[in-house]
C-alpha cells in the first residue's frame, strides 16, 4: 500500500518510479520459441495435482512418480481430505497421470480423488479438492472434470482466482455440453479441447475463448485400470497433454505465472498441422 494514505490506488504501485524495474520478466513474447521454453526440461521440481478418480501408483505408466494420494470425503456437508488407499476407481486418473509423466518424466504427481460413492456431495468434494491442492502449494492442477452446479459458481470463482494469484496453473478439459461448466469456463483457467493430430508436441492456440487451447485427444494411447492400457478419445485426454507442457515450462522457468504460461503456450503453438 502507498504511504500517502491511500490517495494513489495501490494497484498502480508496481508501475510507478523505480518499481518499474521489478517488472522485468523472463518471458518476452517476441523472443519466445520452443527451444527457450522447453529444451532440456523434464518436469523436475514441479508438482502436479490430478483431481480425478484416483491413481494406481504402481501402474508402470506413472513411473513411480506419485508422491501423495488423498480423497475428499463429505462429512456433514463439508469436504474433509484424508489419505487414500483406493487406487483408481475408473482408470481415468491413472490415464491422465501417465500422459503427464510421458511428457515430463521427472514431475511429482499428487492424486486428489473426488470421484466416489457420494454423488450428492460431488460438487462440494471437487471444490474442496481443488482448494486443498492450491493450499498444498502444487504448481499445476489437471482437471478433467467440471461441475454444473450454479450454486457453486461463486465458490469456484473465488478458488480459481486464488489459484491464479498463488501462481497455480489450472488446466481444465473443456465440456462439450451446453450450459454452465465450472471451472473450465473461467478466464484464468487453461481450457483445453481435443484435436486429431497424433502428436503431444502439436498444440493450437485459439484466440476465441472460452476454449483457448487444442491438444491431442483422439485415439490417445493411455494407461487404464488394473495395470491395463487402451486408446481413448475426449477432451479429458487432451487436458493432461497441456498439463505436461505446463509442468515442463514451470521446471525450466519456475517464475512463470499462469498468465505468462498461457502467453508462452500461445506464442509457441502450432499454426498448421505438422507435415
Amino acid at each position, binding site marked *: 500500500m502507498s504511504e500517502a494514505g491511500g490517495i494513489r490506488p495501490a494497484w498502480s504501485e508496481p508501475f510507478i518510479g523505480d518499481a518499474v524495474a521489478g517488472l522485468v520478466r523472463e518471458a518476452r513474447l517476441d523472443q519466445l520459441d520452443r527451444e527457450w521454453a522447453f529444451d532440456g526440461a523434464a518436469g523436475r521440481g514441479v508438482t502436479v495435482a490430478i483431481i480425478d478418480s484416483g491413481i494406481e501408483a504402481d501402474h508402470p505408466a506413472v513411473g513411480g512418480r506419485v508422491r501423495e494420494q488423498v480423497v475428499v470425503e463429505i462429512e456433514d456437508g463439508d469436504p474433509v481430505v484424508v489419505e487414500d488407499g483406493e487406487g483408481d476407481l475408473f482408470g481415468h486418473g491413472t490415464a491422465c497421470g501417465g500422459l503427464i509423466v510421458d511428457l515430463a518424466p521427472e514431475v511429482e504427481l499428487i492424486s486428489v480423488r473426488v*470421484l466416489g460413492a457420494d*454423488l450428492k456431495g*460431488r460438487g462440494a468434494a471437487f471444490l474442496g479438492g481443488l482448494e486443498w491442492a492450491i493450499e498444498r502449494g502444487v504448481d499445476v492442477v489437471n482437471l478433467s472434470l467440471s461441475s*454444473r452446479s450454479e450454486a457453486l459458481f461463486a465458490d469456484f470463482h473465488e478458488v480459481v482466482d486464488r489459484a491464479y494469484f498463488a501462481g497455480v496453473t489450472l488446466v481444465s478439459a473443456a465440456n*462439450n*455440453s451446453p450450459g454452465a461448466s465450472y471451472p473450465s469456463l473461467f478466464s484464468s483457467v487453461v481450457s483445453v479441447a*481435443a484435436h486429431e493430430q497424433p502428436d503431444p508436441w502439436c498444440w493450437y492456440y485459439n484466440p476465441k475463448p472460452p476454449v483457448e487451447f487444442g491438444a491431442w485427444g483422439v485415439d490417445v494411447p493411455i494407461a487404464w485400470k488394473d495395470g*491395463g492400457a487402451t486408446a*481413448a478419445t475426449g477432451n*479429458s485426454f487432451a487436458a493432461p497433454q497441456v498439463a505436461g507442457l505446463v509442468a515442463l515450462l514451470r521446471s525450466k522457468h519456475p517464475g512463470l505465472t499462469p498468465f505468462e504460461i498461457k502467453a508462452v503456450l500461445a506464442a509457441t503453438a502450432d499454426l498448421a498441422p505438422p507435415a
Partner: protein
Amino acid sequence: MTEATDAALEVLLRAARETATARRIAGDAETALLQSVVDAAATIFDAEASSIALFEPDPDRLVFRVAGGAQGDGVVGITVAPTHGIVGYVFSTGEAIALTDVASDPRFDKHTAERTGYLPRSIAAVPLMDAGATVGVLQVLDKRSDESFSLKDMDLLGVFARQAAAAIEAARVGRDSERLLRNALTSIGGEALDEEALDALVTAAADELDRDDEAPFWRLVDRVAQLRGTSDADLELVDEILEVVSRHRSHRLGRYGRRPR
C-alpha cells in the same frame, strides 16, 4: 343436488378413464422419444448397439432404459453403480469419452458386458445434461465402418444426447405437474375419488394442460367442485395450484423448446 353432482362426477370419470386408456395404449412418451434417439444413433453411426442409461436415486444407480441396434437388446433393464465402468465415469464427470479396443483390456467391465450378451471393441459415451445436472449417459458400441470414433462422431453424439435430455426434462416437468394436480384433485374430490379414479383424472387433466390451461376439461372439474359444495377457500387454493401448474409447465417446456443452440 347430490344426484347432479354424482352424475357430473361420473361423466368426468368416464372421460378421464378413456383418456388414460388411450394414453396407456400409446405408451409412455418419454420412453418412445428415448427409443427413437437410440434407434437413430445406431442407424447413423452404423453401430452394433446404442443405449441410454438414466440415473435413479435411493440407492444411486444407472438403469439402462432403452437400446437400439442389432446387439442392443440385452442391456435393457440392467443396472450399474455410478462408480463403475465407462458409463459411470461419464456420468460422474460429465465428460464425453470414447475408448478403442476395450475388449483387449483385461479389466474392462466384462461382467456387465457379459450380462448383456455382447462384448464391444469400441465405445463412445456422452453425458445427458439437463439444466443443472447430469441425468444419464448415451452410449454407442462398435461403429462398423471404423475401429474408433472421430471428433465429429463425438460432436454428433452430443447432438443426440441433447435430444434425449430434452425428452427427459419434458417428462420430469410432466411428472412434477401431475403430482401437484393430484393434490388439487384430492382436495376437491375428497372420499369420492379412489386411487384409480385419481390416476385417471390426473392423466386426463395433464393431457389437457399440455394443450391449453383454459381447457374445457378443467372447467368441468371446477364445476363439479362447485356442485360438491367445496368451500370458497378450497376452490381458491385449487385455482392457485392450477395456475402454478400451468405456468410451471409452459415456462419449463417453452424454455426448453428454445434451448438447442
